[in-house]
């Protein structure tokens, strides 16, 4: 999975960063801290005796940002740097697409449609997906789920709806 070039030989403006993984992780934390601080900018922090709603989130966000800065600094001084792994697009796209497909169809069409849809979309996260096999399996499994969740366990999950 390490398709990026060797950090020691990396040229360009970021050559002084020995560990791109730590640098990226640190920047990620700093961004998260910034989002939190931005979100609670209008809230009152209060005093130690009576905490305001913003006291803890603000304090924690500052600590989070500080750990991010520490990680970035470490990335410059570390001797044993690690490279950033390549991010795959296929996996997250189809897996999360499948979950979202389920979320958007369960109320409208019911489990009979949402179940197979989620499974078929999800199956494409694997490059070796086989449509026919997945389709048959998804229909069978959805039927099992309908019986199990609706009739055996009595959960109120919509089965089939015609919009």
């Amino acid at each position, binding site marked *: 999975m390490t398709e990026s070039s060797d950090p020691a030989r990396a040229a360009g403006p970021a050559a002084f960063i020995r560990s791109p993984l730590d640098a990226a992780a640190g920047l990620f934390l700093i961004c998260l801290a910034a989002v939190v601080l931005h979100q609670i900018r209008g809230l009152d922090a209060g005093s130690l*005796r*009576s905490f305001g709603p913003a006291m*803890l989130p603000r304090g924690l966000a500052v600590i989070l940002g500080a750990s991010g800065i520490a990680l970035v600094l470490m990335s410059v001084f570390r001797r044993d740097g690690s490279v950033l792994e390549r991010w795959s697009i296929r996996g997250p796209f189809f897996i999360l697409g499948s979950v979202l497909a389920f979320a958007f169809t369960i109320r409208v069409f019911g489990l009979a449609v949402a179940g197979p849809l989620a499974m078929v979309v999800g199956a494409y996260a694997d490059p070796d997906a086989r449509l026919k096999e997945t389709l048959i399996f998804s229909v069978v499994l959805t039927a099992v789920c309908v019986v199990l969740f609706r009739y055996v366990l009595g959960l109120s999950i919509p089965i089939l709806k015609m919009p």
Partner: protein
Amino acid sequence: MDSIISNLALGFSTALTFQNLALCFVGCLIGTLIGVLPGVGPIATIAMLLPITFGLDPTGALIMLAGIYYGAQYGGSTTAILVNIPGEATSVVTVLDGHEMAKQGRAGAALGIAAIGSFIAGTVSTLVIAALGLPLTKLAQLFGPAEYFSLMIMGLVFAMVLARGSLLRAFAMIVLGLVLSTIGTDLETGEERLTFGIERLSDGLEFVVLAMGVFGFAEIIRNLENPEARDVVRGSIGPLLPTREEFRQSAMPIARGTFLGALLGILPGNGAVLGPFASYSVEKKLAKDPRRFGRGAIEGVAGPEAANNAGAQTAFIPLLTLGIPPNAVMALMVGAMTIHGIIPGPQVMTKAPSLFWGMVASMWIGNLMLLIINLPMVGLWVRLLKVPYRLLFPAILLFCCIGIYSINSSETDVIFTAVFGLFGYALLKFGFEPAPLLLGFVLGKLMEEKLRQALILSRGSFMTFVERPVSLGLLVVAAVLIVVALLPAIRKSRDEVFTE
């Protein structure tokens, strides 16, 4: 002593009703079934199966959940032995000698000794829980907000020191978990914090949503990225019952493993993960011929498996007596208890003694069931292991979606889970371990509450945490732990333990 016996009698009379026995059985069975599947650890298993318990009364639901928990633990060990994949952190050690035994045609003996060792460890730790439950509950009632806060600080420090990877990263994950726990309506002023204007977030973030996203979905994406060569044992499994000689070799390792595991499991902050590692290195040191280890030594399976199970069970002690979950799985149990209207803590034992003791008794019954049902079913597990991941993961996806949706009948929750799946994937890619995040998230709300209470009582003075002796003691332990973990020598051996 008398009270322990009468309490256990109450427990067994609750657990031995037909309904509860059946629930315990079903829980153990499904827990094992899902736990056997590689790539599905106990956290995802419990989160996925949570909706199954919705229609039950609280006692039955908790008995079943506990069954699912042991079942998943047990299934993880089966996979570790039969396939070269540790189902979770605690069965990493079992892979070393267990799979080696399986390759030599002694898979049956490895599975058998793992089951027997786990059962013995389970029996002892049930007694430990029964013995420690009452005194610890009494102790907990003496705790004020300051002591609770310091105890949770100590728990988080433990979690940080025991996490894999760098201390700074584990620390950052705990802080991030704490930040996520502040999402929602402020306890006192009622103002909304960090809700991004989304109405569904004003009650705070649902724990299962976070856990399922970060552990369930992110794990699936990661598994697809690095397809593992599954090395399922072919050929004969061999006799399930270990020979007399193997029993003799395993007896002391099981005893030592049980002791170590039970002791470490009580520690807040996921001490249970240390049990199997500790047991393995102790056995290797004590062995006459340490070179046998890693080449199919039965002691290397018996000891760690006993330690694993003992720790898994005594991890309930901080949860049931103090209301503080020591690890991510126990954090999920808190979520499950809350759904059934039970707030974990010292009051459970006094207000609902039959629930508390029924659960303790069912732990022992569950262990017995696992011993009886699992060994004859090994053939089924082997066949299950041959199901390709290509078919497995869409099924897991569907179960996860149904599970999350049915908690609140809310499709918004399902969407949030997808978002946290992406978030969890990003964390993994940046090299963060998500387990401390979950613990920080669960303890966060309670910590904020106790911190505010303590500061109100002390009129805003932080000195209260060091002026009260118990609180000071807990903080000193936490400080010592951090210092020790930062010492270069310890740091080096800590790295070795987690990479071995």
